[in-house]
């Protein structure tokens, strides 16, 4: 056996030893590797259903792509965004979306908080109260929109009927920008406050009785107890409810779509409806994607703000 050959043999042995440890490593991975391995399927799935579509959306938004032209996608840089800035309907729908968010989120919070406090009272029969809280939440959004469109109908609607019975003149709700907007906001608040109430109710039930008993002993009144105990301890539930509600409010589509189709004119159209119109009705995928990118960014900013708020408050 020559020296070279023995060296070769040695290295082969070392290799097989290495190979063995590789196997060992796969079979008995360190914690870090294990974590990566276990996360991989989820990461892949997320990449497929979130990263790819979002990437594709951004790609489309910098192209001119209209299916009605029959032409292939052409790179157009920021042209779609440029068009958007000059588009009065984009600004109007964005303003409407922000207004709906600013009105209905606090509105639903206040109504939801009241509902939750009422549902938390020591009723003898709790289930009818809880059930009536659940129903608006369980109803599909478009159904709620259609039902309320009838409620607010100027001739056959129950709202005008009640107004006339108490001696007030009826209102042609969908014939004026302001009233139509009000009707939509009322509907959204009705529809979403039960979701707020459910989350807040869950939060209420985690507050120990003993705190209230101690406050009673110290002579704090009901209102004081609410401000000093209930509200501070509810903060985490309220923030969670607010995050969910704000994001869905920014994406408002179903209720105005079924109630007014954005009318009169474009006075109650939201950004989500404008995206739908550009992509589905006009088949202008480039412009529609650019609008969707803006809405995506808007949602991300709001979420980031909330998350920062939670972290800041500890």
């Amino acid at each position, binding site marked *: 056996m020559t020296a070279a050959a023995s060296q070769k043999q040695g290295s082969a042995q070392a290799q097989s030893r290495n190979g063995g440890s590789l196997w060992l490593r796969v079979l008995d991975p360190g914690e870090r590797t294990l974590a990566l391995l276990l996360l991989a399927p989820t990461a892949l799935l997320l990449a497929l259903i979130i990263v790819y579509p979002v990437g594709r959306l951004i790609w489309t938004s910098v192209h001119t792509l209209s299916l009605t*032209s*029959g032409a292939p996608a052409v790179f157009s840089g920021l042209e779609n965004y440029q068009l958007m800035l000059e588009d009065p*309907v984009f600004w109007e729908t964005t303003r409407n979306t922000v207004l709906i968010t600013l009105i209905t989120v606090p509105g639903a919070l206040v109504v939801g908080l009241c509902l939750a406090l009422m549902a938390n009272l020591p009723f003898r029969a709790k289930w009818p109260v809880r059930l009536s809280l659940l129903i608006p939440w369980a109803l599909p959004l478009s159904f709620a929109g259609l039902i309320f469109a009838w409620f607010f109908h*100027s001739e056959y609607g129950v709202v005008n009927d009640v107004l006339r019975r108490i001696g007030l003149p009826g209102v042609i709700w969908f014939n004026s920008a302001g009233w139509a907007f009000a009707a939509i906001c009322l509907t959204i608040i009705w529809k979403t406050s039960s979701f707020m109430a459910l989350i807040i109710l869950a939060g209420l039930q985690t507050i120990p009785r003993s705190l209230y008993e101690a406050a009673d002993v110290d002579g704090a009144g009901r209102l004081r107890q609410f401000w000093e105990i209930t509200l501070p301890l509810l903060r985490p539930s309220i923030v969670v409810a607010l995050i969910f509600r704000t994001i869905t409010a920014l994406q408002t589509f179903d209720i105005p779509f079924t109630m007014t*189709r954005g009318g*009169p*004119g474009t006075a109650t159209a939201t950004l989500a409806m404008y995206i739908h119109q550009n992509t589905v*009705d006009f088949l202008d995928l480039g412009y529609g994607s650019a609008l969707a990118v803006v809405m995506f960014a808007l949602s991300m900013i709001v979420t980031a703000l909330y998350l920062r708020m939670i972290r800041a408050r500890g």
Partner: protein
Amino acid sequence: MISKRALAVLLAGFAIGSPLTASAQTQLRAFVSSQHRPDVWRKAFDLYEARNPGIKVGLETGGNTSDAQAQYLNTVMTAKDTSLDVLILDVIRPAQYAAAGWTVPFNEVIGSDTAAYMQRYLPAYAEANTIDGKVVALPAFADAMFLYYRKDLLEKHGVNPPQNWDELAVSAKKILGAEKSENLQGLSFQGKAIEGAVCTFLLPYWSMGKQLVSNGKLSFDRDTAVKSLKLWKDFADQGVAKKNIAEVATDDTRKEFQAGNVVFAVNWSYAWGQFQGPESAVKDKVGVVKLPAVAGGSSVSCLGGWEWGVSTYSKNKTEAQKFVQFLSSPEISKFMAINAALLPQFPDVYADAEVVKAVPWFAQARAVVDTAKSRPVTPRYNEVSEIVRTTVNAVLAGTVTPEQGADQMEGRLRRVLR
């Protein structure tokens, strides 16, 4: 054992039989709008099957408005679905479908003289279906907007059908004042943001001799647009039309007139059959004439009607086109006029003795269809339509003034029709 053998025989039968039947039978599938009597179209399809034993035609229907059907077909075409061969299209869409490459031209099937072939139709339909010399679809039937009126009420108050919109306002006020009925409206038209509202805007605009689009370019006349919007808004403000006219869609106009609550109504030809139906409160009390003009202008109507196109994704394009040629023939036009009261796309069919006997008012309809104008022909029609109808709706709701509305409309249209 027997069952196994039977299965083998069956499989062999399929293996041999299927290519044979495929070559002998051509299966076509046609989409028909549900509001245009698919039951009667089915009979026309049966006739074609009887004459062409190798061909079977399936009928698909869906949606109850032009908008809903357009949305469905948009999905089918963008998915390059091969299941539909023949499509019925609202007159505003053939141009759009041709630009998107969704329909195949008929020039080859028609042969050398396409001009002569198309000249058989009413000129408006020859024009609407020919784009850059290509015949992109063939007319299925004609339609236009008319002025319906209550014959009994006009006679009672000694009023003649109006020649212009001012006369209509005067007559309506006179009748409303004398009848003193809270439910009675002077005039019903389409103010909701639907396709019909595009025609609402264009009727007075055209009547004043202006065009919205000329040679593919926007030719917007602001003053005319303001006058048109103001005309409709005044009807609402003066109490001739009802206050919530911005909520009224085409079929609302039809229903309210049919219930006896309207003196004058702007509507398509389909309403006539319904007014004469068993559920109508105005049976035999309805007159129909051409639409009023703007004082000093000419009477125009909005061109409706539907066209047959053949899908680019069809696997039997030639067979489908031959079938469409049959559907768009004088024979079927007459059949549909008599059995479904659809207005003919051929001038001669209006004079046909059997047609005149079945639907006498078609004799007057011919002149209206002749003066009807096409809505703008552009591949981006959906956007043009949306801009016009939301503006009409906003003005009628009082959200913007006619002047603001005209400015907004112009600004937005300039973006689309550059």
